[in-house]
Each structure stands twice: as C-alpha cells, then as structure tokens.
C-alpha cells in the first residue's frame, strides 16, 4: 500500500478506451526504465454495504502478494465512507468515491487519504450521486434527482449541473459527448440522455429498453446499455445503442444480467433466478466480441470454477484477469479472480457487503 508509486500513474477505469493517463506532479525526476512495461500495482474493491448501516468500505488488494488490506478508507481517515458507496473513479492522482445515500463524493489520494468531501445538494436536498466519469480535467457525476454534476479536479469544487432526467445512472463519454442512462428511479423510464460537454447542455434523448442502468462505450463510440426491465415480461437486457442512428440491437437478455467492457470484449454474466430463493442460478459467463459482433463459444469462466452468486465484474486492463464480485446482500462479499484462460486465480473474502466494483492502479516500470 505504502509502496512508492514513482513514474507514471495510470488510472484505468473499466472503460479502457477512455483510460486517462497523467503524470504525477510529485516526482520531477523519475528513473526511466529503458524498456517500461505496464503492470497492475494494486486493486481497489468498493463495498456498497447495506442501506442504513453506514458500512460502505474500501478494500485494497495487492495482486503481487495476493494480500487484501481491509477498510483502507477507514484506516486512512479515522472515519467511515458512509452509506452505500456506489462507484469509484481513479483519475490522475486522485480517486473519487461516489457515496449514494450519504450523498457525498469523497476525493482522496491514491492511498485513500481524504482530500475533500463534497456533499451534493440541490434545493437543500441530497442529490444522491450514482456514478462518475472523467473528461478533460473534470469529473462528471450522475445523481438520482436527475442531474449530471461537473466537478473541477483542481479546485475540487462543483462547477455546474445539467438536468438529464430522474434516476440518472451510469454514464459514458465519447468525444465531447456525455451519455447517461436515465432509469427513472421508482418510475421506470426508457431514456439515454446525451449532453454536449462543450456547452454543458442536454442535446437529446435516445429510446432504450425500460430502466437502463449501466452503460459502457467501445472505441468506436457505440454504447452498450444494460436495462433492468420490468421484472415481468421484459427481462434484463444488454443492448447496443448506435448514437448516430439511435438504433438499438439486443445482445443478451436474461432474468439476471451483469456486464463490463474491456478492450474489444463485453464480458456478460447471464443467469436465471431461482423461483424458490430468487437468487441467481445457472450463471453463464459470456464473452462478446464488439468488433466482430459475435459471441465467443467458450465461456470466460471454466465450468470447474464455482462462483456463489456472482454479481458484478471488472477486468484488469493489464493482466486481463477478471474480478468477479459475489455474495448475497445478507453477508460480506467475496471477489473471485479469474485468469484470462478462465481458471480461478484467487478467492478473497472482502470486508463489506455488496461489493460493487474493482478499480485498477497501473504503473509503468
């Protein structure tokens, strides 16, 4: 954890096409390795916790030693993250932890030491932030009350807000355009909103399947949107949205779907819901090539690897190892690390409930 990160700090979000590279200001005269190689120095895993329990935690995994350091935010700052942390963004030399019900953005250094806590409010109400994405020195955060909030990464202050629609969820940035899923929160909607970042105004809406939640963009600017459906006749669906034509194409639908995009592949967990326990069963691990628009024949997790209640997944951009978080929301979660060949590398017990994302710190050495 305290290992000196000396040359370049590369912060990679799961949208690798928009991975942002920045030079650390602290080190003026780094030792330059004649043949630098990108490696993953650490993995942060964010645990959402349980609603009303103020038990969001941040764990740090060292892939070299296979050791997990639990609750690093608590240790670094002597206080908790708050209630239901939903997203973590590593951008430059800072991290942005989006805490939904506490309605805060915790801005920290790369060792999770707090630099600033922003309480997001509008009309004296907590806005309940959901997801964050970076673009040109700004961080954009979506909120449940329907806004995209712009935060300056130097002053660490909110610079503006633009209305996109209730229950704004995950967002992607393509060129100077921002796209966000508009779920409607409690009153399901069918929109993906587009915001022009040069003017910071909403420019249009796209129609997608009801209750869009997650989205990722590939390097060609296509969006992959996961809609939660209506829990009845409309299942959970991963669809491709062409932002030029507004056309959509269904890639996968199931009673339970989770996805992430890495390189040219969309990694999808597709499962059934057990009618007795309502838990996800019979999970399939699908790998979709977004370039060729075909589903790989081989699943990305071998059948010999048994994962109990897989929920979310992220891919290490360097090693291509897949971090699959798992567990029922009634107990602390686990992360299963799976090799690109589909074998289990490690299973780690996490400190908190509902692990939601794994974020990777990479360096050139």
């Amino acid at each position, binding site marked *: 954890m305290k290992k000196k990160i000396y040359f370049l700090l590369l912060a990679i979000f799961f949208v690798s096409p928009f991975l942002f590279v920045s030079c650390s200001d602290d080190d003026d005269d780094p030792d330059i390795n004649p043949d630098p190689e990108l490696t993953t120095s650490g993995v942060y895993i964010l645990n959402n916790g*349980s609603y009303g329990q*103020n038990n969001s935690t941040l764990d740090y995994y060292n892939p070299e030693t296979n050791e997990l350091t639990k609750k690093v935010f608590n240790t670094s700052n002597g206080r908790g993250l708050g209630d239901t942390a939903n997203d973590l963004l590593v951008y430059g030399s800072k991290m942005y932890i989006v805490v939904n019900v506490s309605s805060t953005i915790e801005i920290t250094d790369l060792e999770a030491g707090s630099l600033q806590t922003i309480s997001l409010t509008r009309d004296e109400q*907590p*806005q309940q932030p959901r997801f964050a994405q970076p673009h040109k020195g700004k961080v954009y955060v979506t909120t449940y009350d329907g806004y995209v909030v712009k935060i300056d990464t130097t002053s660490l202050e909110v610079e503006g807000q633009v209305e996109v629609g209730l229950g704004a969820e995950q967002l992607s940035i393509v060129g100077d355009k921002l796209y966000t899923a508009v779920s409607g929160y*409690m009153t399901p909607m069918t929109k993906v909103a587009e915001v022009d970042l040069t003017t910071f105004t909403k420019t249009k809406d796209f129609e997608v399947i009801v209750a869009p939640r997650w989205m990722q963009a590939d390097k060609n600017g296509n969006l992959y949107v996961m809609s939660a459906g209506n829990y009845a006749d409309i299942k959970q669906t991963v669809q491709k949205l062409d932002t030029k034509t507004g056309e959509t194409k269904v890639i996968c639908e199931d009673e339970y779907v989770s996805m992430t995009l890495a390189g040219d592949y969309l990694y999808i967990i597709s499962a059934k819901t057990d009618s007795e326990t309502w838990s996800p069963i019979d999970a399939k691990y699908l790998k979709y090539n977004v370039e060729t628009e075909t589903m790989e024949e081989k699943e990305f997790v071998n059948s010999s690897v048994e994962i109990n209640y897989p929920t979310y997944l992220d891919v290490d951009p360097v090693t291509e190892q897949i971090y699959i978080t798992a567990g029922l929301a009634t107990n602390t979660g686990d992360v299963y690390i799976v090799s690109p060949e589909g074998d289990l590398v490690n299973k780690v017990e996490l400190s908190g409930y509902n692990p939601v994302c794994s974020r990777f710190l990479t360096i050139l050495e």
Partner: protein
Amino acid sequence: MRAFYYKRLLCLIGWLLFALSAYAQQVDTTKLYKLSGVEVVEKARVSTTRTSNPVQIMTSTSIERLGMQDLTEAVKRFSGVTVKDYGGIGGLKTVSIRGFGAQHTAVSYDGITITDAQSGQIDLSRFSLDNVEQVSLTIGQSDDIFQTARMYASVGALSIRTNRPSFKNKDYNFRAKIGGGAFGLFTPSLQYDYKLNDRFSLSARADWISAKGEYPFTLKNGKLVTEEKRTNSDVQSLRLEGNLYGSIKGGELTAKLYYFDSERGLPGSIIYYNDYAKERLWDNNFFGQVNFCKSLSDQFTIQSSTKYSYGYNKYRNIDNKYPDGLQIDRNTQQEYYLSVGALYNPIESFSVSLTSDLSYNDLENNFTNAALPQRLTSLSVLAAQYQTTRLTLTGSLLGTFITDEVKSGDKPADRKRLSPAASLSWRPFEETNFRIRASFKDIFRVPTFTDLYYLRVGNTKLRPERALQYNLGITWSGESSLFRYMSASADIYYNKSEDKIVASPTMYVWKMINLGEVESKGVDINLQTEMPLNSHMAVLLTTNYSYQHAIDVTDKESKYYRHQIQYTPRHTGTGSVTFENPFVNLTYSLMAVDKRYSLSQNIPDNRIDGYVEQNISLNRTFRLGRTSLRLQGEILNLEDRTYDVIKYYPMPGRSWRLNAILTF
C-alpha cells in the same frame, strides 16, 4: 463498565435467592377457580406461578410505581421478549417473543386481538398506559380456554386490559391528567365514568400526545465524534375511547368505540454526512367491538365477540428523486370479525370449549397494478382442561382455513392447517407451592399482505412460517412474616422456526422468500417480592433475567451459520426496587441488555454495544375527601448514555417527565 452492571444485577438476584433460602414455606391455599358467567368476563387475577405456560403480569399499581407511560416501557420489563424500538415517542415499537418475529405476537385490547393484515405486526407506540389496568404476556398457550380462537393462533399474546370503572357511593368518576417532559412532550388526558343505572355504566376518555422529539445524541463515526440532534421526530396523536358496560338478562355486555389519529415525522436511520429527513406518516384508525357473555346453566356458558376495524395510513416523502419531488403512499385496511364460543363444565374439574372465529380483511392502496387483496380467515378451536388444586392439564387443537382474493396478479393457494398445543402444571408435594410446568405448541403465521403482494417485493408462492415451542419450568410462591409475598419462576425452552419469511436481495429488488431456520434455546427467570418494614412502609423488589441463544441454522455453507440472529441479545436483565412510604414513594429501576447484531453476520461492524438504562420514579398522592391528587415524576436514562436499540436509531439521553393526576 458493562461487566460492572451485570455484576450489580447478579448481586440483586443473589440477594433475593438468599432471602428465599431463609424463608419459611407455606402451602398454596388457592381455591379452585370455577368459571361462572360473571367471572369469565372479569377474571380473577391470574397467579403467574400456577399457570402451565409462562405468564407475566404488570398491573396498574406496578405501572404507576415504575412511572411508565407507554406500553413498550412495560413490555421491556418482561423476560423472554425483545422489543424493537426505533427511538423517540413516535418511533415504531414492536415486541417479539423468544427469537420469533414480531408477527408471531398477538396483541389484544380488552379481549379482542388487534390485527394488521398488511404488516402483520402491531406498533406498540400507539397505546398509552393511562387507563390500563393490566398488561400481561403469555408465552405459549394461555390456560384460559374460553378465549377467541385468534388468541390461540400465535406464539404468545400480549393482552392489554383497560380498567373497568367502579363506583363507590356515587354515580360518576372523573380523572384528569396533565403531563409533560423533556423534548417538548405534552400529554394531557381526561376520563369520565358514569353510572347510568344498576345495570349499565359508561366510560369515556380522550388523550393527546404531543412531542417535538428533537433530542440530542452523540454520533460516533470512527474517530469522528459529533454532537447531533434528532430531527423530524415530532409526533401528535389523539386517542378517543368510549366503553359501555352492562348486564342483560344475566349476561355481561361490553362495548367499545376507539379512535386514533396521529401525524408523525419519521427521522429515519442516521446516515453519515446526510441528515436530510422529510418522511412523514399519518395514521387513522377506528374500531368498534362488542362482547357478550352469558351462563345458560351451571355447566354451560356462551360468549360472542364482534368487531369492525378501519385503518388508514398515508406516507409522504419529499425528495427530488421522485416525480414532482414527492412520493405518497396511501393504504386503507378494513376488518370484519366475529367470534362465537361455548364452554361446558360437566364436572367441577373438567371443562371443554369450542370457539369459532371468522374474519374478513381487505387492503386498498394507490399503487398502480396493486393486488388489492381480500382475505377470509376461519379459525376454530377445541380445547379441554382438567384442573384440580394440584394439577392442571390443558390441550387444544386449532383449525385454520385461509383464502385470499386479488384484483390483479397471482394469488396463493388456500391454506389449511391443524395446530395442536398441550400443557400441564403440577404441584408434586401437597405441602409446598412448588410447581412444575411443561408445554408444547405448534403454530404458524400466514404471510402478510406485504409479504405476498407488496410491489415487486411480495411473493405469492410463500409458505406459512412455522413455529414450534417447548417449555419446561418450575415455579414457587408463598408468603411469610418477612415477606408479604414472593414468587419465583424459572423456565427453559427450545424453539424452532422453520420457513422463516425473510426479505432477500436479488439483483436489483428485494423479494420475500421462505428462507431461514432459527433454533432458540433460552432461560427466563423471574423473581418478585414484597417486604413490609412496618405498617406504613414496604420494600418491593422485582427482577428477571433472560438468556436467549437464537441462532440461524439455515445453511451450513453460509457465512452466518449458527450466528446469533439479528437484534437478539444473549443476556438481558431488569430489576427494580421500590420503597413505599407515607412521604414519597421511590422506585429505582435498571435494565441491562447485552450486545446485539444489526445484520445476520456476527461481525464487529454489525455489533451494537450493550447498554444499561437506569430510571428513577417518584410519586406522592394527596387526598382530600373524595378528591385525590397524584404527583409523579421520573428521570429516565439517569446516566445520559447514548445507546441504540436499532442500529443508527439513537435513543434519547437523560430526560424527565412530570405528571399531575386529579381524580374525584
């Protein structure tokens, strides 16, 4: 620090046990309790040591002594129960028995159960103790076999009995109370009883509770410790009640009209870095009930009860994440209820009863595509009892039939079931009051409307939740020159809960499922004594201790297999000492509760620290002819400790209350 309090409590218990050993025993002289028409309605005070199931009683005298104002305060002092208290005057308060869910506890008001088909649990915060004559808690099946069938259909019953007016050389009683306390508490009430003639009398009462409820508390977030204030915890509630008591042709008639209206803020759980709280709840409840009981002969008694109940609640949350910045839920419930029963005493020591209950419940709300369920419930019970001065044997068989209708969506299959219960109380030695009791009950609860039909969360495939109870206990009571009265009981139990109905998370929604098996083992010990010092002064002591080992045995692979279930302390103890004298009656009471866990997994993050709460109550009554004025004051949470019963719902620190009660 906590250990110190447990020691203090143990000393108190030890002292009482010592007193016991030095005590000269006397024989139980209790006469056989024969049911007659009048006695059925106005039961003689049950001796808690003679019952074949654990019964705990709090009379109006003890309630006044301890200075209790709401029902929860009384229930918290019973052993074997866990009270969930969300804090403040208006916070939800429910009671669960020996590791079972709160939906398994029946709550009756003057003999007829109060139901909530929607949530299945009764919020105790809406009952005041002002006009209550007796609160009793029966675990298992009561020895009174002549009750409504509904009173058989639960793990245990909390019975609230209001005082029935008595008139001495006048035809009216008047009682006025004015009360107040910390955090803006104001509690006035009025009661007027009127004797119409030799056969009929009336009683009418009104009370109002108003509280700001903005109490301070200390919030600890790691090393960050801040002084905060609870907000949006105000409450206003009005209660009106009218009773008619009468005798018609040798039968006893009681009728009641009840109205409750309240508005309260819901402060919600403490959320770090966000103190926004704008949820509000409006409750409106009306019911009318009539009970008639008559002895047709020495052997034959009949009784009938009927009730209509209407409940409305409105929930509102102001939050911009909802369309138009507002979320409003409205629910309306109705119940029609009829119970008819007969009791037959062919010989003095044997009685048999047959009772049938029929009820209809419906629920309407403003949700789109709501199920709007209607439910017809038929309960019939056949019970028999053999009772002599040394032996009581009771057995019952309850038959249940339930059918639901819905306006939209799926409906569950009809439910039919037979539920047996049996118990005995035996005094093995003629010369002592020592008794052994044993009981068994196999009961279940049907899924509530919320469990079955609530938007997305509900699941119509749910099976009823089964509850098995076994109890074995010893009791003893007596009196001597040193003790005016002493009673002691110790019970051990084993319970099992199968097919527990729990909310389980799926990917994005919670769903009600049958998942969960809980095994509970425990011990309840109760001791009570009264020691006269001279003709004007006495010391009264009560103490109890509960041990609850209630563990989740659902899944061996789970991370919380054999962990103590949520919100259930292993150890709980209460004690009180009263010094009665002609000057100022003084009561000191304490309650010690062990650590608990807010979620299924027993990890440090989920732990809620144990606590000790100490209260002091003082009172004095002034009399002038027929008029009496009682002044009463309490200091609650003497040590000003911040503690949680429910995690992140802090309880008030030190506070005070004052009451003046005028009667003539």
